[in-house]
């Protein structure tokens, strides 16, 4: 009887401790695995996570860049084109470029991060379509293609690729036959995979995944479709980096 009472008295603190251990474990596990979609092991600690940002592929003129290449702050965004949060964040970034892009303070660098588990086939094909737009047109065509795509897509695997992809190509003045031929060639598969690998190597755990780079090279990770105010505050902070 006394033993039973003792057990009951102990059950609550044990449950609380167990819950604490599980919460801590889950958070550590989350950081450790970084929800990496290629199942590579990524470092667990914050220090190591910061170092991961240094694995970001250097920004070069081969990147798709909107704004001044010599801008004080550069925002590298890794995007899954079927992700509804990327669609939302795209308009946030357009707002950023309206405010900071024209003065040359901020440049927007666009990279691919198709999440195969969530958006199989479609996200990669859409990424390839943007590359084809850049090849058959120019850097402006690339951005026009993406802007129009995010206007049209309902996201979450509901985009009708056969209709939407060639339609945008036509609308921005690309030759449809060449565009379709480029799209089926798979010539950009490696480039897209390289971007994806780089996103996960830098600690990307989902999309949109962005890295804000200050003039002095300091990098800030930004996860998710954060509101314009948050992005603006982060840009203002990065602009103050000496």
């Amino acid at each position: 009887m006394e033993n039973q009472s003792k057990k009951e008295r102990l059950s609550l603190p044990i449950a609380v401790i167990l819950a604490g251990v599980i919460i801590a474990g889950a958070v550590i596990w989350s950081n450790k695995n970084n929800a990496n979609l290629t199942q590579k092991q990524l470092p667990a600690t914050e220090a190591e996570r910061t170092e991961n940002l240094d694995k970001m592929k250097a920004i070069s003129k081969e990147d798709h860049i909107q704004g001044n290449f010599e801008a004080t702050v550069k925002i590298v965004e890794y995007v899954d084109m079927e992700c509804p949060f990327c669609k939302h964040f795209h308009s946030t970034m357009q707002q950023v470029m309206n405010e900071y892009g024209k003065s040359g303070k901020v440049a927007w660098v666009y990279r691919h991060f198709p999440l195969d588990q969530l958006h199989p086939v479609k996200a990669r094909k859409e990424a390839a379509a943007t590359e084809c737009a850049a090849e058959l047109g120019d850097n402006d065509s690339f951005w026009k293609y993406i802007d129009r795509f995010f206007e049209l897509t309902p996201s979450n695997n509901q985009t009708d690729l056969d209709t939407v992809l060639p339609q945008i190509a036509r609308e921005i003045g690309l030759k449809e036959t060449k565009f379709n031929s480029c799209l089926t060639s798979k010539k950009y598969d490696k480039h897209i995979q390289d971007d994806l690998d780089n996103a996960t190597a830098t600690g990307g755990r989902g999309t949109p995944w962005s890295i804000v780079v200050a003039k002095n090279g300091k990098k800030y990770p930004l996860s998710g479709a954060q509101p314009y105010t948050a992005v603006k505050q982060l840009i203002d902070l990065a602009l103050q980096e000496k």
Partner: protein
Amino acid sequence: MKVHLQYIQQSFTKVFAHTSYIALASSLAIAAFLFVVWLPNFGLIGEVLSTSSAPLAAKLKVVISLLGGISTNFSTLSASYTIAIAILFGIVVTMVVYLVRKRIQLGGNTIVTGFSGTLSGILGIGCAACGSFLLMAILSSFGAAGALTLLPLKGGEFGVLSVILLAFSLVLISKKIVEPLICKT
């Protein structure tokens, strides 16, 4: 159902008559909410607060502005259950503290339900940006992240389940608080 609501109402009257318990429940709910909204950007917050050379005011502005992510980085469903989980978590834990201080035995069912609700909530949290649910981190370790896509709410089920379990736990705890300590025949 009506009886359950009466239990909750009466237990609230008992527990939250004390401002200290209101303060505790509010603090826990706010802490849980902040934890969930900031979770995807703990790395950024750490980076901004520890290594940035910018003024403190600029650092704090970044941290506070990230709270706006609840409206842009969560779907309506996930934002709703995130807020509900935070509030229920604060209330349930506060009522458990009340019970402990009053030396009322909780009972196995109450502990199991409250514990399951919290655990389920943990699995369902994470910003709703594509692919960053905490559960996906765990599943991807086993190469099973794709399993989430089979669920209609893509993992949000755990958040909903958590709200249900925490609400159930709240009813059980309320009953314990309201019912006097009697030996049933």
